[in-house]
């Protein structure tokens, strides 16, 4: 077998035939294929997100945000310190430079022989990131511009000049983010990240304070420092391990966001330690019948449903304190329980495919019932906290108590339904 044939053979793997043309690696096709695969994989979750009501809420938020922004702008004092908002906002748009490569662990085996061609693959990833991030910078500037026009003095920048400065800084930051994984010494990689953020901060602050030339100078200085760092540091030709780890982190961030609304089995590393809270489960009696409760309590406290429940409780508590109308307060109370109920209901799905719960000598259905009990307890606790907030926010005590009773009844119903529910392929039923 010739070296060329050997290389092609290494590239060929399951589902990769489309990316290999004429014996070489078609990096453009491979990147497109990977991106399409990611979209296909996440599409069902996005559908669930919109079904969960988040789509409607987002549309409502967008519809109300526009008039609210205009209303706020109309009331701005002439000396409003707009730079305190504009500088960090643009800095974030410039500094955040994620590059999705869609690389997978198996690539270390199947694509390693084609390492030479992989530089082309990364160029496609970089181009896609550049387009997406340029749009983000443009959107940030468009959003900030009315504020700038309102609060800045007579010597105002032209929009095109601000856009040019932001684009230059973004290009430098993105180039730094692309080169960073290649630096072999972690200290150099860390320094590159710090310099990228310093460049973003300096370019943004200089733009709003001194104008185009100062911002370009800050970008040039940052780029020169980064170039010197890259020249001095040892570089890996193609940093497989780092790129794959980086891709995993970015995918996990997406899944983490999606898991706020739906059950995401792919979510890896979504477990939080929460040592003190998780100790609550240790207090169950040391008996066989408490084993499923032990497992599901730890699962609940260390996973997203608990985090989501805390976030929803805090957010709704703040809104209840903000809105003084009793009806609005009670609607917020009900909304909080409803959202947490959806999350708590997902608890029973966590160990659905675990062989252990089937192999353990446990009563049939015991794990499902444990999940139901935990969902009910968590919702009751949330109802109690929010009922106390309702009372503190001025709602009459009898009404707050009635809300708690309603919430507790809802919690019991969720627990009961979860405890009895038997999904088609549920092993707990055995």
């Amino acid at each position: 077998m010739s070296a060329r044939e050997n290389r092609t053979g290494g590239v060929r793997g399951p589902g990769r035939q489309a990316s290999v043309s004429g014996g070489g690696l078609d990096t453009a096709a491979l990147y497109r294929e990977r991106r399409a695969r990611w979209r296909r994989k996440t599409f069902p979750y996005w559908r669930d997100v919109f079904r969960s009501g988040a789509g409607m809420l987002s549309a409502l938020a967008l519809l109300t945000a526009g008039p609210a922004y205009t209303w706020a702008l109309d009331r701005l004092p002439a000396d409003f310190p707009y730079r305190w908002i504009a500088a960090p906002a643009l800095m974030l748009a410039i500094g955040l430079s994620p590059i999705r490569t869609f690389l997978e662990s198996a690539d270390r085996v199947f694509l390693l022989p084609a390492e030479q061609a992989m530089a082309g693959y990364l160029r496609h990833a970089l181009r896609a990131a550049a387009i997406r991030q340029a749009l983000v910078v443009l959107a940030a500037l468009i959003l900030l511009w009315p504020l700038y026009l309102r609060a800045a003095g007579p010597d105002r920048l032209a929009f095109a000049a601000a856009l040019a400065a932001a684009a230059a800084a973004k290009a430098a930051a993105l180039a730094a983010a692309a080169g960073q994984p290649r630096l072999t010494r972690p200290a150099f990689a860390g320094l590159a990240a710090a310099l990228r953020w310093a460049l973003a901060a300096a370019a943004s602050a200089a733009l709003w304070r001194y104008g185009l030339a100062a911002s370009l100078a800050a970008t040039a200085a940052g780029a020169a420092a980064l170039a010197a760092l890259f020249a001095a540091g040892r570089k890996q030709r193609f940093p497989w391990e780092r790129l794959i780890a980086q891709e995993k982190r970015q995918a996990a961030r997406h899944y983490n966001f999606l898991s706020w609304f739906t059950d995401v089995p792919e979510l890896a590393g979504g477990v939080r330690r929460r040592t003190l809270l998780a100790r609550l489960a240790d207090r169950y009696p040391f008996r066989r019948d408490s084993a499923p409760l032990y497992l599901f309590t730890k699962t609940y406290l260390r996973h997203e449903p608990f985090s989501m429940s805390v976030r929803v409780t805090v957010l709704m508590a703040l809104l209840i304190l903000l809105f003084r109308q009793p009806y609005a307060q009670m609607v917020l109370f009900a909304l909080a329980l409803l959202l947490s109920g959806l999350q708590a209901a997902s608890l029973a799905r966590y160990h659905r495919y675990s062989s252990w719960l089937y192999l353990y000598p446990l009563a049939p259905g015991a794990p499902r019932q444990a999940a139901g009990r935990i969902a009910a307890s968590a919702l009751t606790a949330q109802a109690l906290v929010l009922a106390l907030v309702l009372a503190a926010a001025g709602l009459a005590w009898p009404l707050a108590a009635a809300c708690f009773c309603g919430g507790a009844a809802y919690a019991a119903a969720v627990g009961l339904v979860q405890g009895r529910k038997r999904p088609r392929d549920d092993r707990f039923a055995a």
Partner: protein
Amino acid sequence: MESVLTVEGLYGGYLYRKPVIRNISFAVGKGEMVGLVGLNGAGKSTTIKHILGLMTPEQGEIRVNGTTLEENPEGYRRSLAFVPESPELYEELTIREHLELTARVYGLDRGEFAARSEELLKLFRMTEKAGSFSRHLSKGMRQKVMLMNAFLIQAPLYIIDEPFLGLDPLGIRSLLELMAAFKAKGCSFLISSHILSTIEKYCDRYVVLDRGETAARGTLAEIRAQAGLPGDAGLDDVFFRLAGSGEGGGL
């Protein structure tokens, strides 16, 4: 000898009327260690899945401690401990919490759990990792966690699929010591492994599977005779003769 496990005329597979394993019969006596050997795809894992109750036999009967899964599900499951080939751990639990869950499930009291878990953590050199989540462990360490959980209880029957996979030499020695100690206490073992030289030293009898059927079963001397080999032939030679007669076998 009193049997802890009896498999009688077992037929089963993944598609109805297309059994992967056919007419498998063997028994594991009290305090006995039986090696289940065969090439990849010979039907070892399918046989184990049937014994565990993860698959339902098309024909035949499986009894653990005299009972079938249908007759007494809790008693059946309480009688066996299983170590799978690929470690399966809960990502939400630390190593110590896995041990506590097992202790609760099998009805150990808190004192027994504390003493035995510390002993096992020490034996497998995992004390420092007791508070770690499974995702932070290497494959060998994850396998040690599976073994510690299995040996935390004293089950009448241990089913261990590829016990040595991923273990370091000290881990292998600890496992072999544990198996010998538990065997001396009357526990029985069904071990599926490709490390023939090791299991030859420890197993009392063997079941050799070939393409879903029993190619031979008995003591080493018995299966040697069934393979038509002389008295000094080892398990390796017997296995090669019994299972290596199909495709492959040399370049």
